[in-house]
């Protein structure tokens, strides 16, 4: 029974991911006074790409073909860590947050290698910039999670969520606010959203993530796009699970699960609105200002870790 719930949660994260993208795009369009495409559009695009031919550059090696596949596998595995509507996840109680962050790293590592294997200038450009941003983003990512782990005395995601669930909603600590701030900034950087990266650009001066997938086409491109959608969805779900789990089901009753699911949809919608507002209002940072942005996130997360000393005692 429990394992069925866990698998359903994982499937929700994987299959719902394109919808999250579609809704964000729609919100953004509305904020810009456009009508925007259908929210189901990303599914159509995935389907279209999956039926197309896969092209590889003549100079590339097996790495070029393997990279998207491994990226997809890693991202799905990361999604298996995150509880959505029920306080459990397929890997949530055994695997800890270090594993989660480093699995994302493995996916990024393989995509960067795939980009370099394309043999054009853009792949290297994207990989080089991604290397800078991701190595700096890892610091606040892990430290924000460390602060929460110290508070809850648990290192596994479900343990941390279960602990938060037992706290009073109106009794949140400074540590939570600081950790949320830093992790929210990290999510923007990790998923390649504004103001760190522009997901809609194809201008070589500004591309980061898009630069890496420029040589990919057809089903390989579909896998990469799907994986980055899953990553976005999983990161939003992680924020919700860590900082706003109230309403999540702990027992096995179907009714509780259904309300928890509805609540989850509401929370994700709030985050999606927030994200589209940020994306429409903020300008993209200059490349060399991104380290400052991530430096602020790191400082905030370090403060969160330091404050745990007082909050906990």
């Amino acid at each position, binding site marked *: 029974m429990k394992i069925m719930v866990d698998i359903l949660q994982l499937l929700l994260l994987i299959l719902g991911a394109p919808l999250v993208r579609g809704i964000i795009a729609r919100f953004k369009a509305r904020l810009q006074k456009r009508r925007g495409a259908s929210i189901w559009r990303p599914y159509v695009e995935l389907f279209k790409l*999956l039926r197309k*031919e*896969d*092209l*590889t*550059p*003549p*100079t*590339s090696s*097996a*790495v070029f*073909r393997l990279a998207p*596949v491994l990226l*997809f*596998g*890693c991202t*799905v*595995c990361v999604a298996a860590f995150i509880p959505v509507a029920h306080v459990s996840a397929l*890997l949530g109680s*055994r*695997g*800890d947050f*270090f*594993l989660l962050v480093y*699995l994302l*790293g*493995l996916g990024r*590592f393989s995509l960067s290698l795939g980009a*370099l*294997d394309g*043999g*054009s*200038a853009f792949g*290297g*450009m994207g*990989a*080089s*910039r991604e*290397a*800078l941003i*991701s*190595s*700096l*983003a*890892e*610091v606040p990512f*892990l*430290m924000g999670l*460390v602060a929460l782990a*110290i508070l809850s005395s648990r*290192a596994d995601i479900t343990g941390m969520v279960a602990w938060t669930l037992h706290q009073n909603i109106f009794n949140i600590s400074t540590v939570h606010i600081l950790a949320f701030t830093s992790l929210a900034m990290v999510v923007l950087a990790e998923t390649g959203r504004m103001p760190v990266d522009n997901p809609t650009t194809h201008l070589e001066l500004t591309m980061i993530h898009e630069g890496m997938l420029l040589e990919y086409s057809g*089903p*390989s491109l*579909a*896998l990469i796009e799907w994986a980055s959608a899953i990553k976005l969805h999983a990161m939003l779900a992680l924020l919700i699970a860590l900082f706003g789990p109230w309403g999540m089901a702990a027992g096995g009753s179907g009714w509780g699960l259904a309300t928890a699911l509805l609540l989850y949809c509401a929370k994700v919608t709030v985050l999606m609105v927030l994200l589209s507002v940020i994306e429409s209002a903020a300008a993209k940072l200059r490349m*060399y200002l991104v*380290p400052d942005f991530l430096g602020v996130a*790191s400082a905030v997360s370090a403060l969160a870790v*330091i404050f745990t*000393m007082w909050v906990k005692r």
Partner: protein
Amino acid sequence: MGPIEMAFAYLLSVLGVFVPAILIVSRGARARRLAITLILTAGVAGGLVAVSSFLWQTTSLLDLSWATPFPFSFAVDRLSAFFLLLVCAVAVPVTIFASPYFDLHYSEQQRRWTWAFFSLFLLSMIVVVTASTGFAFLAGWELMTLVSAALILIEGDSPERRHNVFVYLLMMHVGAAAVAGCFFLFLPYSHSLDFGMIRAAGAAMPGGIRAAVFLSAFVGFGAKAGLIPLHLWLPRAHPIAPSPVSALMSGIMLKTAVYGFVRFAFDFLGGGPWWSGYVVLVVAAFTGLLGILYAIAEHDLKRLLAYSSVENIGIVFLGLGTSLIFLAHHSLLGAGLALVGALLHAFNHAFFKSLLFLGAGAISSSTHTVDLNELGGLQRRMPVTGAAVLIGCCSIAGLPLFNGFVSEWLIFRSFLAGSSLVDAKAGIILPLMVGILALIGGLAAACFVKAFGVAFLGRPRSAEAEHAQEAPLGMRVGLWMLGAGCICIGILPGLLLRPLVSLVQVLVPGAGVPEETLSIAYIIPWIAAIVLGTSALAALLRPRARMARTWACGLPGLTSRMQYTSTVFSKPIRSVFAQVYRPDRKVEQLPTDQPYFPASIAYQSVRTTSYERVLYRPFVELFISLAHRLRRLQTGNIQIYLLYIFLALVSLLTFLRFQR
């Protein structure tokens, strides 16, 4: 003599006597093959000795005091057995690799000497990790330095190489002096240099002497391990050695320093003074961060790997420092966890670093360069080598499913466990170290994306890379043995974790590891199954690919010059951390009055690393001026020298007279 003792005696006599003797007496290729086979059997015998003495906890192995003027004996406890296993497990694949490598690179004369010294080098490292008296330890320690210097000099001769070897020998002897100092500080209390007596004396010594021993051991072993600022020799000596020797130096020789430090700080002293952990932690954090930052800026593959060794030693010492902090607070679970992490990282680093150095050797034998900016596209030309090197790169970047991750994970968890310490200082500092290690890990991933991506992927950047051939069979076998080790420990870490826990329990009585952290051994295979299973499913979604030329924005075609090079790849990171590098740049542009249309432009960037200027220059100048003053004593006049001798004699006699 039981079978274990026999095997150990076989190991020492083969490496120390038979192999060099065969090579010196006979010149034929058949004798050399016999010698190589003997080295391999010795390696296997050493592995068996290590495993069996670990299981049955035999200690005393061999006493050679009858043959030497000093007590000279060998014993293998669990700590020694672990490091003996490390030496032998790496030595066998490296020997297999080295056989075709030396055949390709060296003349007949060079080959004989190289193999003789190679064998002695292995012997010296085995002596260091199994010695049970101070004399045996120091003898092995000294032999290790001299033989490795000889191996570097066989490769070639130039003023620059001599200078680098000089720096290497100088630093090593400063370190050796400090190590010898440690032993002599023990002497008044233990009255012997036998390890058992030293251990017994360790607890009873006054605090000041304990602190002095600790600091002296930290400096001595730190110089050998390459801790910043004592790492100066490392990026000079490792790149100029032949690749299999670099693999041994980086993979094993640095670990003997880790062994020595653990032996002194944990076994003999049972943890240092309260501040010792913090000192180690701070030095290790600087070592890790600066090491990887210098590594990422390199475009010479072997120098990059050498700097990355500095970084990994930093990670090992981060674990050791954490363990010392826990010990000072009598928190034995945390101490055990951090120590297991550090020892496992030392073991893992031995595997992936020697794999990567061998990979660099394979590259240089087929392209005659290790400059990343001249390489590219090798994965298509040397797929088997490339796949093994890729495993090494993933491991060193600390990615899950590979061995580097497991040890870094343990160290991360020990930082996190630090939050439970009552002491506020430790309770804040240790969790904050997560940030440092995260940054080191992130930069290491960036560095090895660059190293592998630029060397093996994309288009070849030179004619040599274009016409590269796959490495010979022996090289591929050596590479893949190490690669298989990396994957094996990465997916089934339980193989080493349980023995390591029992080792730590013997080393630090009462220490252990929180049971929940051993769960990594169960979860990693599941993760591997999920990641690989999903990837396989996703791969089924795709049809076969068709080759198509990349669109080149309307130009006739892409050239390799349009690709990112190693230098450009690291440019963003170098700009962000510009304070660390501070290069001396020189741009000469002609003619000067036309800034936008220069006829010629010359650009030169020399990176004299800033710490060299700040830390070493004053020392060097001080010593040179001291030496100039001392020179006044040396007049060259024999009567004056006789006067010195006479004065020394008189003062010694007076000293003896009034001593009673």
